């Protein structure tokens, strides 16, 4: 079978698996729709959390970012795993003991206030929509490259699949599909990693391969060789970063705390039976995540070596098939600055911005670009970081079924995260806004219907953002973490650990953290992107890391306001005592 047939086969099989699971696990009550009935085994929940968490960004983009950023890529590795320690130790068991359905549920009850609940819903919707648009873009990329369908049709197919299992199955359907999706995505990630690690170093375990010597007889370690080769070509050393220490520190912290404050991750811990299961489940989730996250830096380094060796100084006419495939998809471009017909890969941009193809081809057969050529650099090659994972099996000449597997894995990663996000958006609308705030008399059946309608509407909006991505969407995805760190995390954390935190403090803190962080990001990314350089940043902290400053502002204002206003009522103090001890966490309170 040729590769294209295999891709259709693998993607088709994985999609029918997800639909089969959706039919098998339909949700019949709000409790099943919101928290899968509350009886999910901690290991199963850990696996579902891992798929929920690992998005198109983790699967498709992260290794590519590390390949080009070297040490600087560590912020994602530490940030997106260290958050689970914060979650497991400081939040998850207490929220499970509290035992309701959503994150705004906790904030609304702990701060005895409908206003606090509504502010939490606004934060949640902000965070979740910035995140979901990126997933739909990932679906579009995979479809257009591997399945040869237009991005629009690809996004619509993806929407259809998510609609089927998220709307029908709710949290229950999503949980079991996520388990299947985890298996697909981790298998798809690890198989090419084993092959490539073995090819480059002779050691098939990528985590060990990255610390081994290269298989080319030079006796150099992988990282040593990368440092040497890159410095020769005018790049900085791979093991050195270019970001300042304070920025690396703040971005890592924003990602860690943001992870712990992401509603679609937190809500997964409402589905296990006991408070102690929430801790255990977070541990398992991190094991499943660590498998991919410790492999990603190895893939990044190997991909960079392979890319340089295959592309640099190769004649365009001799370029491998994958180079031309991705060029046809706009993600690679080559402009022959010195007219020698060879591709020079060097430090610096080949030209300004992303390639704008003129539609004509040059004398070597390459697609010509309209961009102004950057004469200060000898670099002639433009490459989008996103393709490193997707192209890696082709670069390393792996068999067709491995390529097909990667396509199915990328889709699994994007769809599982999209479904988790859709679910928290829909439950915050049907449960927090309707049932708990504006329409308390709604019946359970009506609430379930409202949840399904809200999920459908959210899918349509997400799909629209995927088909017509506003220019800022891709960049803004990473900022969801900063917003979560600056808004929801302090309110939840203080709600558990500081009894004197009251309604006024929580609301003032959440609003100021969100407004500060959002304004800082919007200023540098949307209003004045040309000013987005280290010299203009507050204390040298980039927009990616500013969530930490937002969090500190939130804490300071929340504590100050709480000290000046009335302390929380006695019932709330009793509730805090009750969530602090694990005993008695039975079923989630149905209401």
């Amino acid at each position, binding site marked *: 079978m040729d590769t294209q047939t295999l891709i259709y086969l693998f993607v088709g099989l994985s999609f029918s698996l997800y639909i089969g699971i959706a039919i098998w696990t339909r949700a019949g009550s709000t409790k099943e729709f919101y928290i899968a009935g509350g009886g999910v085994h901690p290991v199963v929940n850990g696996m579902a959390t891992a798929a929920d968490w690992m998005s198109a960004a983790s699967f498709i983009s992260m290794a590519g970012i590390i390949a080009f950023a070297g040490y600087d*890529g*560590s912020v994602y590795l*530490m940030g997106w795993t260290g958050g689970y320690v914060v979650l497991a130790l400081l939040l998850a068991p207490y929220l499970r003991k509290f035992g309701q359905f959503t994150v705004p549920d906790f904030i609304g009850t702990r701060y005895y206030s409908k*206003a606090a609940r509504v502010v939490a819903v606004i934060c949640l919707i902000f965070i979740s929509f910035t995140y979901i648009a990126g997933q739909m873009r990932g679906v579009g990329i995979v479809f257009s490259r591997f399945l040869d369908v237009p991005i629009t049709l690809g996004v619509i197919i993806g929407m259809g699949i998510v609609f089927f299992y998220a709307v029908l199955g709710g949290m229950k359907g999503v949980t079991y599909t996520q388990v299947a999706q985890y298996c697909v995505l981790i298998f798809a990630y690890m198989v090419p990693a084993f092959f490539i690690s073995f090819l480059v170093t002779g050691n098939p375990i990528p985590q060990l391969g990255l*610390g081994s010597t290269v298989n080319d007889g030079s006796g150099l370690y992988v*990282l040593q060789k990368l440092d040497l080769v890159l410095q020769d070509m005018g790049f900085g050393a791979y093991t050195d970063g270019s970001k300042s*220490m304070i920025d690396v520190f703040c971005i890592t912290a924003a990602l860690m705390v943001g992870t712990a404050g992401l509603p679609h991750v937190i809500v997964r811990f409402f589905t296990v039976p006991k408070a102690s299961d929430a801790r255990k489940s*977070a541990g398992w989730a991190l*094991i499943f995540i660590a498998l991919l996250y410790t492999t990603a830096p190895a893939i990044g380094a190997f991909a960079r070596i392979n890319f340089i060796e295959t592309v640099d100084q190769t004649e365009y006419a001799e370029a491998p098939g994958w180079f031309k495939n991705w060029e046809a998809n706009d993600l690679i471009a080559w402009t022959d600055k010195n007219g020698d017909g060879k591709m020079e890969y060097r430090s610096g941009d080949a030209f300004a911005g992303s390639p704008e193809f003129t539609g004509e081809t040059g004398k070597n057969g390459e697609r010509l670009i309209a961009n102004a050529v950057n004469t200060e650099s000898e670099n002639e090659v433009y490459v989008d970081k996103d393709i490193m994972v997707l192209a890696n099996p082709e670069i390393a000449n792996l068999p067709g079924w491995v390529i097909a597997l990667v396509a199915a894995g990328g889709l699994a990663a994007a769809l599982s995260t999209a479904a988790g996000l859709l679910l928290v958006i829909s439950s915050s609308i049907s449960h927090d806004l309707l049932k708990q705030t504006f329409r308390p008399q709604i019946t359970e059946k009506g609430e379930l219907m409202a949840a399904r309608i809200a999920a459908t509407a959210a899918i349509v909006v997400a799909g629209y953002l995927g088909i017509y991505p506003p220019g800022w969407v891709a960049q803004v995805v990473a900022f969801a973490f900063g917003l979560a760190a600056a808004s929801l995390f302090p309110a939840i954390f203080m709600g558990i650990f500081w009894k004197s935190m009251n309604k006024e403090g929580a609301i003032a803190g959440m609003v100021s953290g969100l407004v500060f962080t959002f304004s800082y990001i919007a200023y540098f990314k949307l209003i004045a992107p040309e000013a987005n350089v280290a010299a203009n940043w507050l204390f040298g902290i980039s927009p990616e890391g500013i969530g930490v400053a937002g969090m500190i502002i939130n804490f300071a204002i929340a504590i100050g306001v709480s000290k000046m206003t009335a302390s929380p009522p006695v019932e709330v103090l009793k*509730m805090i005592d009750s969530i602090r001890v694990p005993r008695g966490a039975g079923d989630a309170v149905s209401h």
Partner: protein
Amino acid sequence: MTDQDISIPEPKGDPESDGEADANEQAYWSENIRLLWTLMAVWFVVSFGAGILFRDFLDQFSLGGYPLGFWFAQQGSIYVFVLLIFYYTWKMKRIERKYDLDD
């Protein structure tokens, strides 16, 4: 929108309590907090410490082909995170049994 008080689920603890936890629960809580301080310190040291602040110093040592600071930033910290969560799970179970508060 009016922001009137809303109902709060009845806590399952002692109905006579006045918002102050009993002595046993307080002892349990302070032991938990001590453990949290220790573990969060380790969490900070392996990531922000070894992987960022003291990376340049640690990079003079190596672990196989990895400079040590780089290893902590891209591998080691993640392994320690996993161990931390499972240690906390195990230790908390023991503390909860000691105070008869386990679930």
